[in-house]
């Protein structure tokens, strides 16, 4: 990530040291979020990450869109963090401990439809769904994605989402697992709504970052479907999907960053015109990322979706599977609008976007994963499988 920033921020004339410090804080936060098993630790970690991102989103002090995005992020984020804290407090109250293992034990002893359990479920979900930008808590995403510096957008869209999902998954697999039949419908509803809003809203976008924001919302829907399925394939699929998503989304944003230069933000579709003539390599990489995001084989994105679909079939959620696959069609439509501008439109802006060596490294890694994990996914699939083992033993479902 940092490799892409340097030139971008120089152009923005906002190249400050705090930028990197904040990114590192966010990273620490995320690492603790994913590995913590104590809800207090997780909450602190989440807040660390969130606050760092609030500031980073508004880093372009002179840009109105950046300020607007950051403000929305702060307000909505603070609100949802409050709700999340409330949920956590209920969990503490019911179990007398902040340790996730003991909370799980306490929750399992209660009736699955216990009101307080459900209350904690709903509030915690609300907080976390905000973080991952699932419907109906997604309103902040398009504005923040569009306004923030593109590299931050990339980081937020993958890292914050993945870390929050890790936390979400951790909580659902442990504390809330006992009350599963009560939240399956809820999560399914959120998933379908996310896919719907994400896919349909992205169709009309002309700003690439906003388009990718809405598409991220739809990706969240897909990952949540893995949770609805709730079997081993589903969880493995979620892990693999997020892994693939990280790389392909970063790659896509990296191409947008390439376009940035003095006087041109480079996030409009028209800025991509004729990229295949100006920088064919970048255009090919863009195509690969778009294919991976849409879920066309032989890319990593397809393998991720494959696992999700398989898990739905295995758990007999046939109609959900049909909806999920049919939503690939609008996705291809808007991803290919990007491809169309890059490949089939005449050049309107003859400046050749060149990648700095650091950016080239970032692009190489992302495209490598996007393709290789699609053509030979075996090692990555195993990795995804291992990641599901909780600190206190395998799921054994």
């Amino acid at each position: 990530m940092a490799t892409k920033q340097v030139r971008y921020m120089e152009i923005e004339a906002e190249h400050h040291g705090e930028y990197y410090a904040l990114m590192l804080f966010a990273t620490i936060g995320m690492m603790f979020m994913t590995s913590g098993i104590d809800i207090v630790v997780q909450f602190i970690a989440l807040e660390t990450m969130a606050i760092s991102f609030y500031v980073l989103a508004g880093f372009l002090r002179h840009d109105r869109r950046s300020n607007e995005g950051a403000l929305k992020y702060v307000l909505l984020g603070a609100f949802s963090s409050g709700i999340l804290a409330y949920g956590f407090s209920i969990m503490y109250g019911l179990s007398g401990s902040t340790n996730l293992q003991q909370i799980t034990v306490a929750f399992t002893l209660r009736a699955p439809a216990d009101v307080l359990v459900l209350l904690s479920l709903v509030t915690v979900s609300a907080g976390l769904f905000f973080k991952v930008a699932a419907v109906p808590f997604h309103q902040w995403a398009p504005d923040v994605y569009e306004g923030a510096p593109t590299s931050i957008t990339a980081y937020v869209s993958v890292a914050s989402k993945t870390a929050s999902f890790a936390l979400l998954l951790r909580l659902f697999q442990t504390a809330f697992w006992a009350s599963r039949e009560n939240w399956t419908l809820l999560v399914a509803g959120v998933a379908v709504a996310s896919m719907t809003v994400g896919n349909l809203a992205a169709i009309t976008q002309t700003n690439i970052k906003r388009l990718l924001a809405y598409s991220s919302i739809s990706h969240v829907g897909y990952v949540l479907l893995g949770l609805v399925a709730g079997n081993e394939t589903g969880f493995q699929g979620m892990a693999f999907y997020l892994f693939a998503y990280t790389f392909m989304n970063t790659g896509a944003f990296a191409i947008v960053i390439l376009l940035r230069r003095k006087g041109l933000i480079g996030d409009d579709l028209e800025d991509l015109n004729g990229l295949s003539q100006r920088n064919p390599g970048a255009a090919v990489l863009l195509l690969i990322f778009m294919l991976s995001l849409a879920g066309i084989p032989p890319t990593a994105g397809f393998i991720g979706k494959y696992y999700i679909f398989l898990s739905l079939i295995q758990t007999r959620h046939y109609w959900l599977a049909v909806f999920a696959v049919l939503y690939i069609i609008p996705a291809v439509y808007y991803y290919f609008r990007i491809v169309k501008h890059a490949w089939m439109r005449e050049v309107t802006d003859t400046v050749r976007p060149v990648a700095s060596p650091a950016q080239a490294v970032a692009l190489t890694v992302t495209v490598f994963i996007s393709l290789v994990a699609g053509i030979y996914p075996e090692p990555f699939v195993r990795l995804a499988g291992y990641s599901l083992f909780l600190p206190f033993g395998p799921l054994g479902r």
Partner: protein
Amino acid sequence: MEFFRQHILSVVLFTPVAGAVLALFIPREKDEAHRVLGNVFGMLGFIVSVPLVWWFNPDAAGFQFKENLDWIPSIGAHYTLGIDGISFLLVMLTTVLGAISILSSWSAIQLRKKEYYILFLLLQTGMLGVFMSLDFFLFYVFWEVMLVPMYFLIGVWGSDRRLYAAIKFFLYTLAGSVLMLLAILGIYFKYYEMSGVYTFDILTLLSATPSFPLALQQWLFWGLFFAFAIKVPMFPFHTWLPDAHTEAPTAGSVILAGVLLKMGTYGFVRFSLPMLPQASSSRTIVAVMATLSIIAIIYGALVCMMQKDMKKLIAYSSVSHLGFCTLGIFALTPHGLSGSILQQINHGISTGALFLIVGILYERRHTRLISEFGGLSTPMPNFAAIYLIISLSSLGMPLLNGFIGEFTILRGVFEVSKSWAAWGVIGIILGAAYLLWLYQRVMFGSVSNPANERLPDLNAREFATLVPLVALALWIGVYPKPFFRYLDRPVRQIVERVNPGYYERTERVNAQPTAPSADSAPAAAAPTKPTARERK
């Protein structure tokens, strides 16, 4: 040599990709080099597939030249290739048409040659992969992989409405493909429930899927149906075809009509029928498929008559011809099935050639409107001769390939339903009508448009693209036996699944003491028809 023989399918499959990779290293400014390289690898792709003709054994049951590598063991996907008679013919069609289409692009494509030839070669590999693949996952990957180069071929090098046609083609075909993915996953998972093993291996699944419950089979059939029906294309999923064919560059149209459409029918023959035999032979499904086929035949032909654009006319004629093919498949008789497969090959040859012919005219005059032409046999006599042969081949004139296919299909359909065969015959008449009328308007009479007076006749390269197709058309038309020989065994295996007891019935009837064998064929047709009917 031994390595080559054992891995011939991989060689055939990856030769075009090798060409594409090589082309990546040549700078885009050297477009002459790209043109040559593209053609070299097109030819090479065909040459490496020629040994298959010698080495393929038509009398052996099952799949030949099998290759198997572990690919994704954790989900049970393997790199498995293999061909039987049906896929053998389709693979050969692909390599021949691929080489010819690349050759036909020599002067037609002026811009961005590097990307064009790379994409075309990638498309070649995609198509070959679909026909050779014996692993469902691999099949699906190749099926989808094909869409992207085709999208670009239409969208970048096509004519006026290319962007619309390209995305329409992509989205429409994708819609079918994703539903097919669900059906594939359904089969995969049900097999796991039955046997405890996760595998995508088609041969393994073939042995188990006929024992799926009928209701499940029917759901799976419809899941697969959408992908194949959109690809063929069957009515009412055909609306992407006129746009895609018309707007694509000539070579794109040739490959689209010649090979891509066959993937739909191949899917029915390779997957729907053998894997889901009870569903495929169930009364409702057969009735629906036959109805849609007949509508395609008649409607496609009628719409052809109204077309003003030559390419669109030929595009709709594809709908009509492939209606014959699907009708033949769902007759579920050996004649219907083998006639259908042969007719697919024939269609590839004749419609491919028709698109080449339109492309030749387009290169000269940059218009496809019929009204712009007229009396072209005067300036272009060689062209007129070849065009006439191809038209006759497409409409089903005896001595040419179309007749053999159509007759065999109707023979197979007649066994099942006389009324269906009657509708099919009407389709043949209409086919003759629009093709001959088109020929008359374009070629006969006096030269109405002064711009046509000095059109150059076929040059050597154009001859080279058309003559092989004419030769094949004549060969199949006069001596189709070797082609049918390839189809005998695979068709027999499929018919035994979907129409069990068919061969016993015909053999029983044939064993009855009758007049010499020439009469036993009609005698067999009459008694089997009622039993086939009452069985349904």
